[in-house]
């Protein structure tokens, strides 16, 4: 491992510094602010005196029932959405990489969900999934007969419905990344494999997926980071209910910050989220780069 900084390194740093300096300038103060306030009791309303209380905020959030429940719900949500998005995204990208008439049109159309505001998407699906007068149940009952209407936001189904909408909204992102990555694989590699008589499965396993490792890693980290703090979808569709069935961490954070205005406590929640997100990223990176030089 080289420790000496060569001229080449200095040259490389010149490219990084603008971005780094900008971000540090802008985000440094808010970051420190939130870290410091997480050790205080500070509310914007009610008793607005600030009191230093050390780790009490952190201790509270690790023992509060609703917060613990929100961990459980969040991890369930995270697991299913990331898994489904990665699988579907990969398959869709592989499909879009084929040559066929109208390919370009489908590519643009498939990107549309990604371009929508999550708030609007949540409202849209809430309308479509309305238990009594939603178009989805109308179609289902027209086909299967009355009595088959699905209660999309019942206690059992609420989380599934939210997961469905998140997958609808975000799979295009994964597909986009993978597609761009697939475009970057030199065609000679594929041709060489064809000449050697490799079948589809082997081609995927030994050539395509390894070349896509970096892209897949980035996609997984991104989806995890965003879904750990997912807020608008469950908030608008179910307000965290029924009975906290969809009360993800993002909702807890929003409630503490902007419903109850406990700034100190919500800063602690934010930092917990940062730590968890970071943990996941390190984990993913280790797994992916295991075996690399």
């Amino acid at each position, binding site marked *: 491992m*080289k420790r*000496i*900084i060569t001229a*080449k*390194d*200095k040259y*490389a740093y010149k*490219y990084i510094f*603008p*971005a780094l300096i*900008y*971000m*540090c300038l*802008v*985000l440094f*103060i*808010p970051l420190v*602010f939130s870290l410091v306030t997480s050790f205080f009791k500070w509310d*914007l309303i009610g008793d607005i005196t600030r009191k230093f209380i050390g780790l009490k905020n952190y201790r509270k959030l690790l023992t509060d029932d609703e917060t613990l429940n929100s961990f459980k719900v969040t991890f369930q949500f995270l697991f299913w959405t990331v898994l489904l998005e990665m699988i579907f995204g990969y398959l*869709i990208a592989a499909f879009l990489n084929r040559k*066929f008439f109208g390919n370009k049109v*489908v*590519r*643009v*159309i498939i990107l*549309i969900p*990604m*371009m929508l*505001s999550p*708030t*609007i998407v949540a409202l*849209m699906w809430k*309308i*479509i999934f309305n238990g009594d*007068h939603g*178009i989805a149940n109308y179609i289902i009952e027209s086909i299967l007969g009355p009595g088959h209407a699905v209660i999309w936001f019942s206690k059992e189904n609420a989380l599934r419905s939210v997961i469905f909408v998140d997958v609808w909204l975000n799979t295009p*992102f994964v597909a*986009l*990344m993978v*597609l*761009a990555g697939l475009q*970057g*694989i*030199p*065609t*000679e590699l594929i041709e060489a494999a064809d000449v050697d008589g490799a079948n589809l499965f082997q081609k995927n396993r030994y050539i395509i997926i390894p070349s896509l490792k970096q*892209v897949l*890693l*980035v996609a997984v980290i*991104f989806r995890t*980071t965003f879904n750990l*703090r997912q807020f608008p979808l469950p908030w608008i569709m179910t307000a965290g209910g029924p009975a906290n069935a969809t009360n993800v961490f993002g909702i807890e*954070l929003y409630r503490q*910050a902007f419903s109850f205005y406990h700034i100190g406590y919500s800063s602690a929640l*934010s930092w917990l989220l*940062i730590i968890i*997100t*970071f943990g996941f*990223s*390190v984990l993913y990176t280790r797994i992916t780069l295991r075996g690399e030089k």
Partner: protein
Amino acid sequence: MRKILNSVFNFVVSLILISIVLLPLLWMFLMSIKTEGDIMAWPPKFFFKPTAENYYNIFFNPANSRLSFTHVLKNSVIITLITLVFSLGLSTLAAYSIGRLKPVGYRGLNYMILGLRMIPPIAIVVPLFIIWNTIGLYDTIWGLIIPYVAINIPLATWLLEGFFEAIPRNLEDAAAIDGCTGFQAFRIIILPLAAPGIAATSIFSFSLSWNNLTLPLPLTMSKAATLPVLASQVRTDEGLLWGQLGAYSILMIIPMIIFTIFSSKYLIGGISSGAVKE
């Protein structure tokens, strides 16, 4: 025979994908051209007399005279485009370095950039509000651009790294032999090859800035309000304005589609084989 099966497969899958994406949006579009009576009709009406009143109301009957649609649209476009230019500019450079040049300690820098993004936007709202009010950036366009760029850089950098890394290794060396400086090699050879990645990233970045609601809500009042803020007004005391909601969804997506078509030109095409002779 195989060819026909292939074509049918392609067609069917394409149809399924397009339906999953477009049918819900079609329902929203239909809602945007229905009168309120038609929206509330049961069984749902598929054939009805369309009306332009929802769109008309958005353009000509704004709830606030200071938040007219054109004013807010202008804000959104300016903020998003400027953010895109700045964040892509800074990120492309950083991603090139971390992805290809890989100086000593690049892993640490990488994690630092990513780590700065893991802070949820909610956590920076309160400090940003206080600071912006002190230095006079509250309710200004730059007051939004500055945090937007800061939020976008880590994402764009991370996304672009992968694409830069995937470009075949020895292109810079080949360029150096031909007499290019480092930066020239970057600009003339590497950058065009990373075009698909940059296009993909720009779509994502555009979408994030265009649809962001967490930051504009507390940081603007009327002068710098963006489209998502305006659209949130459909939630009124007397109920949701369903028709207007449909109209806003359609209106907000059109600029994004335009931008996507524009940048997807670069998404097509793979790396030209022949750049490197093995």
